[in-house]
């Protein structure tokens, strides 16, 4: 990593001295604040940074970091997984990202539970790194294919660019499960006022697309300090420090700590691309509910790429939506920052990364999978020590 010039501008964001100073400043800023000061990291990648670098163990006792709904795989309704599995078993080739490959569909069905299982039972499933791989393969062999397109604003443009450009062939269609993050954040703040969140670390790479401005509503309407942050350990520490300073002052502002990547307006071309190809629609979030204006659906001429429409599979409606989690699974509360993975009786017993039971254990960005890998407490501290941040 040291000689890698592509990371050179980021070296200081892992600087040990600065991390120590930031964590001591965090302690000073938190001193005297009435706890718990609950800070939500929206994004699975932030949760990874926090857990991987042991940042939780650097927090003073009155500061609690909770994970939010920022794992797109975890919130993808099982209904769409089931649809993809069914198509795979009917001989249609399914493309998917590695993360969604192992995601389980609804518990009570005779079908294979996941695309992984579908493949082992003779279904046609290909894991790809990028939609471009799917486009290339579908063009080359002309076979009937469907891409299970999961992801937030960060990922949607990658799916939509080859569609708008006319590069995606007609034999490749899409199950469009892209989801929008500001609406779910609003939903979290509206539905769970009993667990007040006093600061939000807004997702950096979503914000590269939406712009920092997408989060202005949080301080304005909810009075909660909000910081758009990058993904290096120093980025996250600085975001926490800034939130604590604001809590201390009794103020709420939006601060963009990740200005090296994120602008106020975001990527206008990406926003145009989403607007030209899709309508914003109400959409289902696994374990959470049907959230207003939180999903993308193909519109106009681009509807010909809609796999559900092409194969006569009805779209998921609020009436048909179910909670959609296996019995006993507490993913919904974990996703909403209301429970920790260790609060769930299944965690590391009936539900492990090797054999995931609930959706939060599947993706490498699922809160439960991250905690299983690095530990939420003791282990994290060890890692933190190893990296010299404690």
């Amino acid at each position, binding site marked *: 990593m040291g000689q890698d*010039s*592509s990371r050179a*501008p980021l070296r*200081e964001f892992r600087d040990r001295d*600065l991390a120590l100073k930031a964590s*001591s400043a965090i302690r000073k800023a938190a001193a005297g604040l009435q706890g718990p000061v609950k800070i939500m990291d929206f994004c699975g990648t932030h949760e990874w940074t926090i857990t991987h670098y042991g940042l939780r163990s650097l927090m003073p006792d009155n500061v609690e970091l909770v994970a939010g709904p920022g794992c797109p795989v975890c919130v993808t309704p099982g209904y769409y997984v089931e649809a993809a599995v069914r198509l795979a078993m009917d001989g249609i080739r399914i493309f998917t990202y590695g993360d969604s490959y192992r995601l389980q569909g609804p518990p009570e069905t005779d079908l294979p539970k996941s695309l992984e299982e579908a493949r082992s039972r003779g279904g046609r499933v290909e894991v790809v790194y990028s939609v*471009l791989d799917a486009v290339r393969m579908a063009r080359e062999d002309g076979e009937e294919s469907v891409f299970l397109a999961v992801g937030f604003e960060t990922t949607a443009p990658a799916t939509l660019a080859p569609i708008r450009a006319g590069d995606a062939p007609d034999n490749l269609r899409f199950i469009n499960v892209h989801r929008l993050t500001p609406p779910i954040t609003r939903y979290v703040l509206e539905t769970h006022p009993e667990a007040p969140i006093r600061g939000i670390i807004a997702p950096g*790479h979503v914000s590269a697309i939406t712009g920092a401005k997408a989060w202005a509503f949080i301080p304005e309407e909810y009075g909660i300090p909000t910081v758009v942050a990058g993904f290096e350990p120093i980025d996250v520490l600085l975001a926490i420090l800034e939130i604590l300073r604001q809590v201390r002052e009794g103020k709420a502002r939006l601060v963009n700590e990740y200005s090296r990547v994120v602008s106020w307006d975001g990527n206008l071309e990406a926003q145009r691309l989403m607007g030209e190809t899709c309508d914003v629609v109400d959409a289902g979030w696994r374990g959470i509910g049907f959230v207003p204006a939180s999903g993308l659906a193909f519109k106009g001429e681009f509807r010909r790429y809609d796999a559900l429409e092409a194969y006569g599979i009805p779209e998921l409606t609020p009436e048909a939506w179910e909670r959609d989690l296996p019995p006993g699974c507490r993913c919904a509360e974990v996703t909403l920052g209301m429970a920790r993975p260790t609060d769930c009786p299944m965690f590391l017993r009936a539900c492990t990364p090797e054999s995931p039971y609930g959706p939060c254990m599947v993706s490498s960005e699922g809160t439960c999978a991250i905690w299983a890998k690095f530990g939420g407490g003791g282990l994290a501290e060890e890692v933190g020590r190893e990296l010299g941040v404690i």
Partner: protein
Amino acid sequence: MCLGIPGIVVEVKGRMAVVDFGGVRREVDATLERVSPGDHVIVHAGMIISKLSPKEAEETIRVWRELIEAISSGEELGSAR
């Protein structure tokens, strides 16, 4: 899922660009940004989602260092409310 990998553009080919990730090169979608060789970029799921400004990175660190120093010396924080 929203993991972004930093890289440097080495070649632009129409709507696509070749990006070097510390020695590994990959062709990625450059629809969203007008890029030139030498640009630092963030790549997610095979697409450049943003340029990365090394100058802004330095500036961020400089400003925060100052703030942290100020907090350490007790200048910056008032009493808790």
